[in-house]
């Protein structure tokens, strides 16, 4: 190369445009616009977008610099050569907006983009919201909740009826209907699916999540500046039909929506290299962002599930009205609209009773579609229509604990412990996620538990620190019929995998997998449950493999702060010389502060006992 050529090249490399180009190619906003946030096993980064037409450069998914150069060339292409909606400016308005702001492309670029203009016009002066759907134990992918984007026209007060007709943007994996659960789980964790953003009116999502899956929803709004809002709306346009890699733990609805908010606000919403991203973590992170006066996320409205509505309607009835409700509908097959207890009440009471029964029936039909209650429903409907309308049929459903106020999923605790023989020790407990039967959060699925990675360390006097319990996962669903009205046969179940001491004595440890099923029901303010099933045990001292486990208990929310779970367990195995008979467990939790609990536990079997009293801090 001649000296002249070298000089020209150096000048080109050092030119303001070249310097700016290098700067912009690695700029967080440019990387976010390309969704350049995936890291492979070798540490190489690339875009999470798999659609080839999302990039102008053939190597654009891996090379942000090449994509930047090619984008500039395409955006600056002569508009006269393109028909309406065909110019690259119409396809990538957010890229154009940002590159204009950076002075990297001509500020006067313009093309005819009627479809884009229509989209921008429809979403002008809108508010962007987030809808959180609480966890759903009917599908492992939904255990930790779900997050959707929501677009509302500005100026309207948030309300359930208004939200139904507003825009809802969902991010989810495209799973063929033929894929079974196991295949779905395997491919979901390993990146075997792609995912897309989809747009629809919110009522469709509300029907699925709140009315069919019985999940409470919370709608929050983002406090965005106008230019941030414009930028996000334009980028959402760019994402229509774009396919992303889907990874259940890290490339899911929460992480993708979190990254969109990062793009719009230039704030860090997600941790740098998260092992997994839960929807509620995004809500909590956003609530902590912004100033005290104007947090990035502001509280919106609670959209109760059909289950919550039905339960609330029943609980709103007076004792006489409840009694009459049971007289009218004593069991699934029988309906007595001439019951004296019912007819003797005022018209408004009868209307309230029938509203409650109809709401409960709808809950039943959706959670137990096999039930034949169509005639019961018809007669109740006709009877209700005989009475005058009674105002708001939803009623004021009590506000459940908002997502951002519920207990964080992890905790660490310390307790004093005593056991048979008068020994005293110290125990440390910790959990990675998520909630348990004593968490008492109404924002979670009621009477359910989902614990991931929990451990229990003990130290007694002279002995070494011992790992008493390591739970890999423990899922429990005791969901009963909401109240004493006729219900379907709802299965309660429990599944867990743990490594633990086999009983209250040391020196015998087991891997224990349990799969139990049973029934639960309400008795006044208590939830009574019974579970029975298989327990597979791999012992350190025996070859025993399989046994049966039976467990029955009473779960009680004494008040807003005090909760207890008293249960009796026994395990039956063919040969078990260490069998210490049934074990009684009394677990309690008292809420001292929003993130602090006192905890107490007592375990008693035929010959031993152990008790502990301590404090748990959630984080």
């Amino acid at each position: 190369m001649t000296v002249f050529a070298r000089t020209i090249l150096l000048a080109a490399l050092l030119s303001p445009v070249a310097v700016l180009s290098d700067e912009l190619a690695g700029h967080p906003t440019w990387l976010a616009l390309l969704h350049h946030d995936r890291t492979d096993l070798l540490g190489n980064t690339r875009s999470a977008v798999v659609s080839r037409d999302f990039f102008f450069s053939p190597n654009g998914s891996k090379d942000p610099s090449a994509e930047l150069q090619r984008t500039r060339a395409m955006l600056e292409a002569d508009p006269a050569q393109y028909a309406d909606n065909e110019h690259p400016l119409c396809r990538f308005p957010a890229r154009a907006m940002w590159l204009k702001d950076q002075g990297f492309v001509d500020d006067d670029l313009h093309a005819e983009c009627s479809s884009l203009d229509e989209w921008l016009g429809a979403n002008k002066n809108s508010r962007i919201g987030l809808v959180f759907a609480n966890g759903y134990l009917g599908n492992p992918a939904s255990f930790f909740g779900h997050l959707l984007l929501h677009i509302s026209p500005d100026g309207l007060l948030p309300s359930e009826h208004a939200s139904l007709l507003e825009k809802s943007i969902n991010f989810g994996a495209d799973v063929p209907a033929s894929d079974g659960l196991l295949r779905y789980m395997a491919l979901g964790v390993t990146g075997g699916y792609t995912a897309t953003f989809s747009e629809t009116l919110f009522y469709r999502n509300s029907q699925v999540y709140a009315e069919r899956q019985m999940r409470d929803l919370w709608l929050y709004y983002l406090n965005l500046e106008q230019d941030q809002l414009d930028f996000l709306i334009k980028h959402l346009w760019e994402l229509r039909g774009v396919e992303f890699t889907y990874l259940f733990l890290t490339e899911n609805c929460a992480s993708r929506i979190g990254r969109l908010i990062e793009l719009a606000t230039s704030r860090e919403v997600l941790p740098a290299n998260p092992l997994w991203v839960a929807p509620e973590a995004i809500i909590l992170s956003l609530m902590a962002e912004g100033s005290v006066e104007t947090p990035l996320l502001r509280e919106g409205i609670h959209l109760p599930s059909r289950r919550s509505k039905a339960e609330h309607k029943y609980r709103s009835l007076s004792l006489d009205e409840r009694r009459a409700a049971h007289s009218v509908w004593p069991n699934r097959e029988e309906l007595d609209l001439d019951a004296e207890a019912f007819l003797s009440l005022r018209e408004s009471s009868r209307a309230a009773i029938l509203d409650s029964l109809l709401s409960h029936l709808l809950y039943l039909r959706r959670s137990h579609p096999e039930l034949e209650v169509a005639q019961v429903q018809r007669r109740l409907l006709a009877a209700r229509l005989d009475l005058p309308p009674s105002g708001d049929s939803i009623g004021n459903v009590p506000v459940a604990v908002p997502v951002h106020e519920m207990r964080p999923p992890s905790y660490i605790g310390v307790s004093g412990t005593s056991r048979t023989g008068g020994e005293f020790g110290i125990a440390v407990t910790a959990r990675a996620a998520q909630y348990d039967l004593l968490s008492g959060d109404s924002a979670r699925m009621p009477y359910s538990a989902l614990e991931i990675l929990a451990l229990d360390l003990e130290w007694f006097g002279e002995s070494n620190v011992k790992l008493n319990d390591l739970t890999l996962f423990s899922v429990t669903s005791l969901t009963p019929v909401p109240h004493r009205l006729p219900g379907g046969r709802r299965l309660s179940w429990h599944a867990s995998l743990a490594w633990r001491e086999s009983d209250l004595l040391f020196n015998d440890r087991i891997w224990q997998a349990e799969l139990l099923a049973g029934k639960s029901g309400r008795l006044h303010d208590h939830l009574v449950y019974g579970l029975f099933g298989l327990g597979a045990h791999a012992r350190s001292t025996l070859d025993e493999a399989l046994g049966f486990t039976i467990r029955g208990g009473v779960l009680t929310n004494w008040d807003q702060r005090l909760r207890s779970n008293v249960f009796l367990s026994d395990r039956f195995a063919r040969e078990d010389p260490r069998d210490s008979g049934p074990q009684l467990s009394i677990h309690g939790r008292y809420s001292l502060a929003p993130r602090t609990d006192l905890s107490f536990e007592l375990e008693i079997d035929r010959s031993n006992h152990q008790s502990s009293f301590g404090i748990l801090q959630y984080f």
Partner: protein
Amino acid sequence: MIFTLTTMNEAYSMNRLIAIGTVSALLLVPQALMAQNKDINPWQHCGIGAAIFDDNETAAAISNVIWDSGSTAVTSATMTPDTCSNKAIKVAEFIDSTYETLAIETAAGSGAHLDALLTLQGVDESDRLIVISRLREDLHERASDERYAEISHSDKAFQMYQSLNNAAEI
């Protein structure tokens, strides 16, 4: 022979033309009439129904993707701008998706879904009580008949759609 063939071909062509004409007339005339008929059934004529009302809840729950654009239901439709206007489709889709909830809210006389439906239909605030009253009367009449329990989902939804169109004509 050739003549005959030609004649046959012509006759065949003519018959085909007549047949096409007749079929077209049968299709077009009712459509033209339907275009002016407020009783058009979007479930039958606009492709609403199965495509929207997804019974495969497991698949829906697994994928978290329920509908891809909000308008995919109108695929195999014989939709024309006259017979299946955008508003009619939106109202019909809403009723189809939320019928069970709408029925109990109509019985109670109010509710979020009922409000949303009236908004979608463009019913003024001042007319809503009357419209709701008419919807209740119609539903009462239908629910008083034992056969109501056996009617298909789409027929019930269509009845409410008709009822709303009639009630909204104030």
